[in-house]
């Protein structure tokens, strides 16, 4: 199963462009809504992000004539806003494969380069719509772990919607938010199938509840958490690509001042998607708060569209 981009070795591209601190930040905000960086599905924000580490343990389904294999990925992703609302994204992962029988192997996955542009933002309705493309660069990964020798381009549409604009009669529903994406895998080698990449994340932000709807007196660290369920799917479309595969990923994100930590179960939706329940652990470092002179604003140009309007965390 080819999973949505969750992995990566640290991007080599260092951020450049130093500017004075200003009313811009890297967190994904839209109106009063903080959209956290999700783990298994990419969020719609073209902002500075540094996801490291992303550790995933999973049991792959047996290949034809092969054995079940335990897969362990250590990944990272770095995103840098280059122009207002436009970023470049770099990711990779180091993978170890331990088959039930036979020798283990390890190596880097193919390096992935991508871009994203925030096309439409409606802060009063906590809505965002973005477009982007990932380029998995063929031949840059290790052959021993089965990295493709060909490249795959994935043009993708992203969207996010918070429900803070619901009527006051349903205040407890306001902390809900969803993000989603749909993309098309286009391999450069004609023998390989095209596939629809799609995913959704449903979040309930206790941060939003406590700080913008109703202070229930919930103590830390619970009020700093965002329970969520992610669905990460891939549907082959042609060339005997097989059936739809994917995972359901229930988990929780914890927001602190300078980083987000998240953990999710990785539950395959069918036997073609994997065996047994895996897990993924992820840390997302808020580099705009740690190094505000370097991050949290585009390299070229300026914008006020990412003004923070909702806290990712309460004071401790």
């Amino acid at each position: 199963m080819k999973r949505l981009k969750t992995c990566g070795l640290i991007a080599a591209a260092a951020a450049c462009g130093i500017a004075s601190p200003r009313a811009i930040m890297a967190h994904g905000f839209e109106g009063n809504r903080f959209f956290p960086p999700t783990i298994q599905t990419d969020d719609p924000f073209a902002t500075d992000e540094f996801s490291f580490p992303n550790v995933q343990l999973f049991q792959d389904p047996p290949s034809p004539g092969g054995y079940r294999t335990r897969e362990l990925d250590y990944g990272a992703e770095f995103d840098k806003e280059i122009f207002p609302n436009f970023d470049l994204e770099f990711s990779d992962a180091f993978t170890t494969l331990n088959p039930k029988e036979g020798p283990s192997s390890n190596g880097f996955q193919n390096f992935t380069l991508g871009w994203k542009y925030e096309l439409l933002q409606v802060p009063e309705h906590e809505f965002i719509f973005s477009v982007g493309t990932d380029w998995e660069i063929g031949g840059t990964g290790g052959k021993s772990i089965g990295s493709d020798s060909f490249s795959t381009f994935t043009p993708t549409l992203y969207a996010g919607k918070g429900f803070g604009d619901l009527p006051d009669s349903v205040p407890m529903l306001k902390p809900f938010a969803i993000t989603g994406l749909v993309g098309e895998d286009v391999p450069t080698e004609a023998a390989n199938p095209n596939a629809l990449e799609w995913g959704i994340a449903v979040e309930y932000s206790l941060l939003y509840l406590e700080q913008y709807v109703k202070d229930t007196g919930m103590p830390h660290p619970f009020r700093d958490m965002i329970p969520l369920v992610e669905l990460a799917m891939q549907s082959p479309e042609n060339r005997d690509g097989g059936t739809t595969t994917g995972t359901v990923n229930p988990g929780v994100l914890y927001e602190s001042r300078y980083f987000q930590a998240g953990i999710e179960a990785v539950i395959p939706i069918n036997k073609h998607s994997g065996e047994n329940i895996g897990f993924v652990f992820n840390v997302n470092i808020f580099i705009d708060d740690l190094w505000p002179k370097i991050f949290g604003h585009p390299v070229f140009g300026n914008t006020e569209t990412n003004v923070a309007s909702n806290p990712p965390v309460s004071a401790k």
Partner: protein
Amino acid sequence: MKTRPIMKPLFIVLICCLAGVSAARAHAFLDHADPRVGSTVKASPGEVKIWFTEGLILPFSDLKVLDASGKEMPVSNKHLDPSNGSLLIVFVAPLKPGKYTVSWRATAVDTHVTHGTFPFEVSP
């Protein structure tokens, strides 16, 4: 376990990254408020207080109280608590029973700007 050689440097780098925390300042976000977010109070509160997560620059920070129709209520004496630079206080004119919205804008000492809103109600 074969994963250890890569695990070790990864976590060292992580620790190094997080070590920078002590030298950094974050954006100012609402921690809690009085009246409490979403609460109903029995009488006009007299003043509105917001505790932020960071110290503020007062001239570039603001706090407004709006009634249900969006009309701005008179406030005065915007100031920071002398012993707590992250506590923003304004006096508010007597409020009639009804629903109100507090709209705030906070400029942290690192000059980053945040803003937001929250409701409260004055009961009859």
